């Protein structure tokens, strides 16, 4: 077990208040950055750390910051994306709920690095308690002189605002978030221009996930090189994983990237295995948008190597036999779960949340949902699987924003890996509504690859 960077003091009573947070070494990063470093040095430090976006796409944060256009006389903005609404992901809410000052500290340092005078935290509308917590924390920080005019006497001004969203999943897409923040309908914008050139109110803007911004704090405190020592390869640092589903100990865990998934799944320190002594059937590794994997492919890659919790290892095998890190929403399914029903449920979510702007996603998600509903309730046809794969292919990559991809991947992967179960739902229609297919061969060890001389 490595050192916790974000959740180190999470169990200290009263850590959500300014006094306790400060006494545990909080706001040291602000002091260090504002007093001893230049904004470019902060960006350089984040670049060195190798921190990758924690919101799902995994784009290097330092690189994103260096793309920010810096025209003279135009305001720049930092927007924190706290519109966490991916099914299975609840790490940001946890962070904001229990240790809000960490996010605020990260916001101050990041805003300083980017030269933003006004920054926003866009919080999902349903998270009203977290909005109140953040507002209280901002008021405390302001009183202590870490926000407002002339912070710590360095001449740097920053105003931080919390903005509640309307509760739409699509507003977690960065350009839709900016539209929503401007008070418009939350439709994703057509790129280019990218937010780094023309974002909020037409000004250069950086949008970062809560966890990415919070991770800037330990990077500044310890130095980027120190942060980069944690993890494997290009996956550096620690990551919050929100484990849910049929695991014994669901919750938010901070792991060092590169932890073997088997350890994460079965060690008592983390998930502790599957509840009620059942067996693992399938895993969604990073929130509902990423491809679902059967247990055998999840624990071992197709090359029979142990899979690690890292961006690269989870994606090993591409879409054929791999998945993605995503936003860290880890969902485990035991042998009694029905993959067809789960896929239908995910698709129902995407159908409900599609903004309706571009046609493939608007019509395709509804179509897939109806077909999957039919399959789940035993009225499907054997041709439905091919139809679903074809429709998902027509959506994938043809839409304005990644929601289309996110809707297509779970369906395509479920059919790729669990086709037997889908077919069983057709051939045993009436049985399918009374019992589940079970674990079948999904946890069997992978066959040894043939050695080609």
């Amino acid at each position, binding site marked *: 077990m490595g050192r916790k960077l974000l959740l180190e003091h999470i169990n200290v009573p009263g850590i959500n208040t300014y006094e306790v947070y400060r006494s545990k070494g909080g706001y040291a990063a602000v002091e260090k950055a504002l007093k001893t470093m230049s904004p470019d040095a902060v960006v350089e430090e984040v670049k060195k750390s190798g921190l990758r976006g924690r919101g799902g796409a995994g784009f290097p944060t330092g690189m994103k910051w260096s793309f920010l256009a810096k025209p003279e006389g135009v305001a720049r903005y930092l927007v924190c994306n706290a519109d966490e609404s991916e099914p299975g992901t609840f790490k940001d809410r946890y962070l904001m709920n229990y240790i809000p000052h960490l996010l605020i500290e990260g916001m101050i340092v990041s805003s300083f690095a980017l030269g933003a005078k006004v920054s926003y935290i866009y919080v999902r509308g349903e998270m009203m308690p977290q909005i109140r917590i953040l507002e209280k924390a901002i008021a405390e920080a302001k009183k202590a002189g870490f926000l407002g005019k002339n912070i710590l006497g360095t001449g740097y001004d920053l105003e931080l605002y919390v903005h509640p969203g309307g509760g*739409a999943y*699509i507003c977690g897409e960065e350009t839709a978030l900016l539209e929503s923040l401007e008070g418009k*309908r939350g439709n994703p914008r*057509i790129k*280019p221009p990218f937010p780094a050139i023309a974002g909020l109110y037409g000004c250069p803007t950086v949008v970062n996930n809560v966890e990415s911004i919070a991770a800037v704090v330990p990077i500044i405190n310890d130095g980027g090189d120190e942060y980069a020592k944690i993890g494997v390869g290009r996956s550096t640092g620690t990551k919050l994983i929100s484990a849910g589903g049929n695991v014994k100990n669901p919750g938010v865990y901070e792991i060092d990237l590169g932890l073997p998934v088997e350890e994460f799944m079965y060690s008592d320190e983390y998930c502790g295995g599957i509840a009620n002594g059942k067996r693992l059937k399938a895993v969604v590794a990073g929130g509902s948008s990423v491809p679902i994997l059967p247990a055998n492919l999840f624990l071992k890659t197709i090359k029979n190597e142990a899979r690690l919790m890292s961006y690269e290892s989870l994606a090993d095998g591409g879409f054929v036999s791999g998945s993605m890190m995503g936003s860290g929403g880890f969902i485990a399914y035991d042998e009694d779960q029905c993959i067809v029903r789960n896929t239908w449920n995910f698709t129902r979510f995407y*159908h*409900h*949340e*599609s*903004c*309706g*702007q*571009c*046609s*493939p996603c*608007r*019509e*395709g*998600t*509804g*179509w897939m949902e*109806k077909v999957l509903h039919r399959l789940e309730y035993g009225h499907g046809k054997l041709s439905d699987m091919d*139809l679903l794969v074809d429709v998902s*292919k*027509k*959506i994938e*990559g*043809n*839409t*304005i924003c990644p929601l289309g991809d996110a809707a297509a991947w779970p369906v395509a992967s479920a059919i790729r890996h669990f086709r037997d179960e889908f077919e069983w739902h057709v051939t045993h229609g009436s049985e399918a509504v009374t019992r589940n297919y079970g674990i079948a061969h999904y946890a069997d060890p992978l066959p040894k690859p043939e050695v080609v001389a």
Partner: protein
Amino acid sequence: MSVKVTIDGIAIEVEPGTSILNAARQIGGDIVPPAMCYYSKLKDSGGKCRTCLVKVSKGSEKDPRPMPKLVASCRTPVMDGMEVQNITSPEVIEARKGIVEMLLVNHPLDCPICDQAGECDLQNLGFEHGAVKTRYEFDRRTFEKIDIGDKIQLHMTRCILCYRCVFVADQITDHRIHGILNRGDHSEISTYIQHAVDNDFSGNVIDVCPVGALTDKTFRFKNRVWFTKPVEAHRDCDHPTCNGKVTLWYKGEEVLRVTARKDQYGEVEEFICNTCRFDKKKTSDWVIDGARHVSNKSVISSNHYDFIPLPVVKTNPILMEANKEQFERDTRL
């Protein structure tokens, strides 16, 4: 200063900042991607329907990497040395076929009773790129018809949510009171609490609508467009922003409807005011400029029955008699 772009192997020099679609339109012909939502006269339109997707096989001279996904040609600016594949790429054709299928998933097949039939962009698109049969086996979404004002009817069931009418209201009229309500496939064009759309240029939403969702109530169910004859005309309109150049659609002596003049991509040349559109339906109101050229591929050019009987028939009594018999035989049910 111009940039060179190659579309399906045809090179052209265009102004920097031109979109791929407009560069293709400058070349013209079959390589022009279809566009259902893009409208060159409306700022910010496009990017939504995805029918104009093309493949960029070479990003630019500086950065020759291909773009990872198909891009919407109406909203992607050209770069110097860019190479684009439209009809030469099987991937694009396949994707476009998929998009057409998606557009038709919730579109009613009521062309036989739809006023737009014959001049409908979706009908043309479906004819060229669509599959013969639908794979969609569920109920289509339906809506009640709404009257927005006394001259325009909204039949939301047919809408493909191109947002063009929203942009018209934003940019051409003095205020917008209709927009998109709800989201996903239950989103709809509507006015808030059944408000009437009422201003001088509201009629233009009918012209920009690519399908039969917004129709002219003064023309509704009067006739099929291919039975009418388009004639270009103008009048001295006293509206400051309307120049009164229109197309009159005749049936016999009667003007059935008035629309703005449209170019070969179905886009109006200039927007017209509601007085010209709805209130001036007498030939005496207009100065006729001449017959409108209609492409011989268009269904509107069919059924030009006015040359029958041929002039020679009119003067020869035997032929007249024969023609009468022929006519009766042909028109018998």
